[in-house]
């Protein structure tokens, strides 16, 4: 069962590797690494609060791409976020804040605000990318030679698979599956040790359910 799930995750991973504009993580042995210590160390290095300027590329299908700027403040401890998305010329496209459950709509240009699902899906994607970076305690683990996988069941037939690796023992990606079918995956690349903590310079969210990808490139870390 676990191996079947692992195979699904690997297939999704290989299928989605094409055209990712970030470097692949280096391999490192996981032989003597304790899962508990790995998670504790990773959690310790993550910043609890941070503000970032990112560039974003929304991709629908193979060739439809639109770029934007994202200014985001995240409070992981209280699970709150506030994001402003702007066009490359600095005009605000939308602004939304929220927490684990609720959202506050602040602004949307043009038709963005007319879609009732728009803000909700933005908030969901932000939560996927910035929250829940460490699996809950006692999550079943499978140790590969160079990767460590944690399987966290949500109880509604869905499961999140966390994949850790690299010499720094960081979260490489997390994949959400329903009945072994991938719904979405967030991949983290090129972690940097910053004054705020450990942050990935590149993040890719792939939503297979709705057929889009968001590529996030860290441009600057701001002190708020």
């Amino acid at each position: 069962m676990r191996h079947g799930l692992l195979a699904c995750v690997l297939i999704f991973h290989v299928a989605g590797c094409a055209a990712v504009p970030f470097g692949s993580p280096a391999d490192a042995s996981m032989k003597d690494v304790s899962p508990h210590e790995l998670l504790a160390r990773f959690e310790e290095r993550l910043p609890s609060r941070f503000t970032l300027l990112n560039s974003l590329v929304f991709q629908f299908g193979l060739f439809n791409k639109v770029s934007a700027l994202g200014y985001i403040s995240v409070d992981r401890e209280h699970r709150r976020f506030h994001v402003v998305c702007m066009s490359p010329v600095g005009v605000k496209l939308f602004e939304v804040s929220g927490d684990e459950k609720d959202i506050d709509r602040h602004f949307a240009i043009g038709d963005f605000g007319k879609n009732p699902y728009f803000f909700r899906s933005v908030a969901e994607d932000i939560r996927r990318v910035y929250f829940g970076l460490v699996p809950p305690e006692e999550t079943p683990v499978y140790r590969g030679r160079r990767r460590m996988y944690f399987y966290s069941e949500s109880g509604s037939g869905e499961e999140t698979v966390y994949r850790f690796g690299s010499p720094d023992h960081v979260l490489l990606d997390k994949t959400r599956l329903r009945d072994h079918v991938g719904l979405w995956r967030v991949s983290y690349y090129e972690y940097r040790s910053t004054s705020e903590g450990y942050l990935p310079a590149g993040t890719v969210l792939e939503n297979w359910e709705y057929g889009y990808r968001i590529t996030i490139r860290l441009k600057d870390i701001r002190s708020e």
Partner: protein
Amino acid sequence: MRRLRKVFLFSLLCLVYAGQSARAVPESPSAGLGPRLSATISRLEAHAARLKTLSTEFVQEKNLAAFRNTLTLRGRIFMERGGRLAWHVDEPVRYSVLITDKVIRQWDEETRQVREIPLSGNPMLRTALDQISVWFNGDYSSALKDYEVELVQENPVVIRFMPKPSALTAKVLKSIELRFRSNEEYLEQILILEAGGDSTRIRFENTVLNSPLKEADFEVDRRA
């Protein structure tokens, strides 16, 4: 997706045109203005009438009400009166857009794609672009239909445009303040105050008027 692109283009137009929504010039543009303001606008328009080409660097500072930090964009603008306008953003992401009387062409470093949108069949874009030329050509009288105007300062000249309650922009825009160089030949900065508390200051630096421009100044894909 096409709608998303249009929203992005619209956002550029919002910035460039800064909210002027009417082309119709009142029969007597300066009617109702005080004699000093009326004389000042006439003088500025006379200067602008001599403008044939423009080459300038810009520093755009965006202050978002929800964040303490300032987002700074830097780039260059090239304009031929009644012809082409090229807007190149160099930081924090490289982005270029070329606007001619027939087409809009844009490129950005994240997607590395050149996108072209013909203006035929896009009457709304066509109208908005016509208004851009009004703005860069310094035909400030045309804004008087939708804006109250006040002379903030005479030396150097600062004039402020505030949308009338009936104007479409009144819900999102508080004011647009234009500061001119001491010789009044061109703008020194534009300050846009939005109703939501955000503000945008665009400073024009190393501005050169009426010098021959290179063909490369109007290419977007040479940066690809």
